[in-house]
């Protein structure tokens, strides 16, 4: 899908499925569009129609919708808008959020959850296996449980590597001055 430019403001596509019934209340009826550089563009009829078309397609969500999708409070959404983690496009007096930004944070949260799961597989003082032992562990895992068991061995090794890296960070950084 092509990017769509309104007076220098780049609207990046994603195009999640529109959710009928949710966009009508936030259609822009008049006023202005505030661009990323702070300049304000009066909304003529053509621009209004284009913006509303994007809203209808679900390109932007309200802070309320973002808070539901992200599972955080509305003040947290505003805080993330201020810090730049979420974009902010003023449409009239509404602080709309690009849907791509919300989707990106949802994906990031899933990644962090995966990090938590893998980190918890080993103790804080876990040591990774040496190369030969790790290879043998993988081969034995294949014999006993197939690819799924091999994946578990790999994740434990990853977690042990992360634990060792954190310990080493404290040793190296802490002793180098």
């Amino acid at each position, binding site marked *: 899908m092509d990017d769509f430019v309104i007076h220098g403001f780049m609207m990046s596509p994603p195009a999640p499925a529109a959710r009928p019934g949710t966009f009508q209340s936030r259609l822009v009826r008049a006023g202005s569009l505030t661009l990323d550089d702070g300049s304000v563009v009066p909304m003529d009829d053509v621009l209004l129609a284009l913006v509303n078309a994007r809203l209808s397609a679900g390109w932007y969500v309200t802070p309320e919708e973002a808070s539901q999708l992200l599972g955080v409070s509305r003040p947290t959404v505003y805080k993330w808008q201020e810090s*730049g983690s979420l974009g902010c496009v003023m449409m009239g007096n509404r602080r709309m959020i690009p849907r791509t930004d919300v989707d990106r944070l949802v994906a990031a949260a899933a990644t962090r959850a995966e990090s938590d799961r893998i980190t918890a597989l080993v103790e804080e003082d876990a040591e990774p296996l040496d190369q030969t032992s790790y290879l043998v562990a*993988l081969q034995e895992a294949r014999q006993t449980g197939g690819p799924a068991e091999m994946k578990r061995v790999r994740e434990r090794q990853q977690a042990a590597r992360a634990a060792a890296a954190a310990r080493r*960070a404290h040793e190296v950084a802490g002793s180098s001055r």
Partner: protein
Amino acid sequence: MEGEAGPAFDLDAVKGRNKLLGRFADQRAANPRGTELTQHVTGEIYNLHAQGGLRGATWFDEGHYVVFLLAASSEHDYDRFVDRSAAGLLLPSRRDYQDVTQHRHALAQGTGDFVEDVADQAAELVKRALAEPGQVVTDILGQELPTHVVVEVVAVDVENVEGDVYAALSYEQRAGVRPLPDDLTSDLAAVLFPDAVPGSLEIGHHRFPMPRGRRPGDVVIRWFRG
């Protein structure tokens, strides 16, 4: 900013919206370590400056080739860094390192797991080599890693060929490119030789049979089939 971790995000996507993140992305890409040491904290931590009194503390883990933005504050508030350092909360945790692993997987193509992506291709490559003893067969695993496999011909009669199998992971060595991690080499050995019994594979100390020989950057895996 508070000391707790913020939402993980793609730095490139948001650096234009936050002055400190912008400086972090631009400055530490050019100079990972930094220039001005943070005072009164433990470790080789460096200051990061951005307009409006925004301050950051960063640490470059050269071994893992990653720069961490450890903490951020407004209004020149370095005391926050000192307090977190004193509490042992400034440097990255094991979860942070696991995040690095996850992030790097996410950046990869395919499923984000190189080993899983190439498992079938690797096993097929070895099958081809077993079908043609003495011939070096080559493929580029995951379109990234040139890999050569050969079955050494040590005894031939009309119906039988015996010999160990060698695989060379031909990872290009050049400035700025890190060698293959040991764990990844083991992962690849396991998927290249799924039928090998535990203990029958050795990594790294073998010369790939002629005519290829061993080349700089190659990691050679030998499957003892005896």
